[in-house]
């Protein structure tokens, strides 16, 4: 006999586990946004591509998501470099701050990219959702069950975020990236190559997106479809704003919050309504956060 309390507790646990994966994809967006000050509207589409990457690696070679993730990460690095030089380099080169024109141009261009990728994917993959049949079992901890797959991807997600933190704080390149994100002119004065730094940050960001997309497949047994980016992009935006653009650990906090909202809210609503309501709430959380944010965001 299952009582309401343990259902909510279970949802809470799911929320935390899924939230970790949300965090790693949002963290990718955060990296690009925080360093280049450019928002990649197409971020969700790279997550989608990562998920499909994992799907095909599973279908063709039998790789499970844990194996596909690093492969996707590598592809993401390449995609990030291409994306940087295709979209950002021209706008950012030689500039010390991001102008309104650059902001607008990159917003619109990446929006175009997003819908281009979605429509291309729909043509190639078809709209029918697919999934990866991987089930390494379930572990019980008291009243809650912990799917092993979810545990593993959550752990990997947190590890990636932690590794990035270490990279940013303990390595030369990482410090260069942080310097660049604070003051481009000053960074150049100490010999940092802005193009290289920005490209690396972008590569890492999209790499995290694709890796996260692969990890997310554990939560989407039937939900990998070309439109999924349009669900995850806003989730990423909300997480980044919640945690603070540029603050790396903020992504983890934001991810956990959204993971919990998306998983726990349906428990309090009717089944047919729950999922949509949860999404709507998760998206709209953005607004009050922005309203009470520091003066940098609000005029």
């Amino acid at each position, binding site marked *: 006999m299952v009582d309401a309390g343990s259902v909510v507790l279970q949802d809470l646990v799911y929320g935390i586990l899924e939230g970790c994966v949300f965090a790693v994809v949002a963290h990718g967006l955060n990296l690009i946004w925080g360093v280049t000050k450019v928002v990649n509207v197409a971020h969700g589409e790279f997550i989608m591509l990562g998920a499909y990457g994992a799907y095909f690696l599973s279908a063709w070679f039998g790789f499970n998501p844990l194996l596909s993730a690093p492969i996707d990460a590598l592809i993401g690095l390449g995609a990030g470099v291409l994306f940087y030089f295709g979209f950002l380099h021209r706008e950012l080169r030689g500039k010390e701050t991001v102008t309104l024109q650059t902001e607008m141009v990159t*917003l619109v261009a990446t929006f175009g990219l997003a819908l281009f990728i979605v*429509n291309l994917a729909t043509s190639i993959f078809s709209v029918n959702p697919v999934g990866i049949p991987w089930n390494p079992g379930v572990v019980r901890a008291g009243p809650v069950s912990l799917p092993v797959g979810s545990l593993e991807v959550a752990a990997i997600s947190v590890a990636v975020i932690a590794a990035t933190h270490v990279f940013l704080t303990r390595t030369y390149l990482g410090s260069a990236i942080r310097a660049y994100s604070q003051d481009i002119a000053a960074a150049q004065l100490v010999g940092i190559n802005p193009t290289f730094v920005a490209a690396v940050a972008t590569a890492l960001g999209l790499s995290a997106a694709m890796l996260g997309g692969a990890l997310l497949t554990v939560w989407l047994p039937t939900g990998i479809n070309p439109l999924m980016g349009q669900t995850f992009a806003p989730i990423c935006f909300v997480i980044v704003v919640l945690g603070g653009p540029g603050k790396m650990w903020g992504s983890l906090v934001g991810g956990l919050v959204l993971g919990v909202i998306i998983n726990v809210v349906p428990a309090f609503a009717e089944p047919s309504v729950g999922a949509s309501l949860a999404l709507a709430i998760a998206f709209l959380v953005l607004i009050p956060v922005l309203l009470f944010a520091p003066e940098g965001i609000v*005029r």
Partner: protein
Amino acid sequence: MRLPRFSLPQFSPTFYGLGLVLVVLAIIAPALPILSLRFLTNLLIYTALAYSINLITGLTGYVSFGHVVFMGAGGYALGYGASAFNLPPLAGVALGGAAGLVLALGIGIVTLRFRGVYFAISSLVTALAALQIVLVTPVLNDGRGIGLDVEKVGYPARSWFYTIWLIVSAAVVVTYFATHGRIGYGIRAIKSDEDAARALGIDATRLKLYVFMLSGLFAGASGAVFVWSTFGVYPTVVFDLTFSLFMLAMIIVGGMGTNVGPFLGAVIVYVSYWYALTVPSLLGLAFAAIGVIVILVALLIPEGIVGTMRRHFPGLRRILE
């Protein structure tokens, strides 16, 4: 008390040019075969949407990714009005415009406070949330949408045409007044440097809200006509972000913030799209191609056709706005 000085504004050549095109269209419409009328009607729907987004994104630089939400609101206003209250279609269109206006007021009061990037994201998020909410709202038939009674609607091609013609004409006039005179200066200052504009006494909050509300009005009314002419409102259609993509594509190709840019952009983009639809193998890729167009124009010629021409041929500035 001194009376405010009133003088008839002298309109620009561009305005007269647009007016001429519209008048000609209105005159020849009754003589056109139904299919052509249908084509023109769709073209004008997209034109109205282009003018709508131009009013906010083109004029102020605030990128409204979720602009389709106003179209959806207008469409549902007509659909719900027709099914629940037997509202005649024209009243439905008016209601659609009102719905767009009120929704824009509600959203704008909150989101226009945010700086560009955050406004854009809020706009995107709002549209996606709206879709989710509509999908589970029983009064609006949840995800099934609301069909119109095909027999009652008939096929009033001329009514459709003249209704959207009226909306486009109104949009052209409103755009003219928003880009000229005192309001025009205020908005240009806001787009140029909003903080500096405020430091000179410009009530940026109010001006932005006004143009946003007007843009919601036109998107809502167009959405209503769209639903009327497609016999029903379906959430995944009428809240589809692809419409937002189209809107941005049209003004970025034509020229953001200009008077004739939306028209020009609408013609180019819609006709290309319509043509691509007639070639069977291109169907799925038509939208992808529009995405590519948006990318290329945004990165390479962000001022669009009209903007670039005005920049390179200063002599044209008086006649091409």
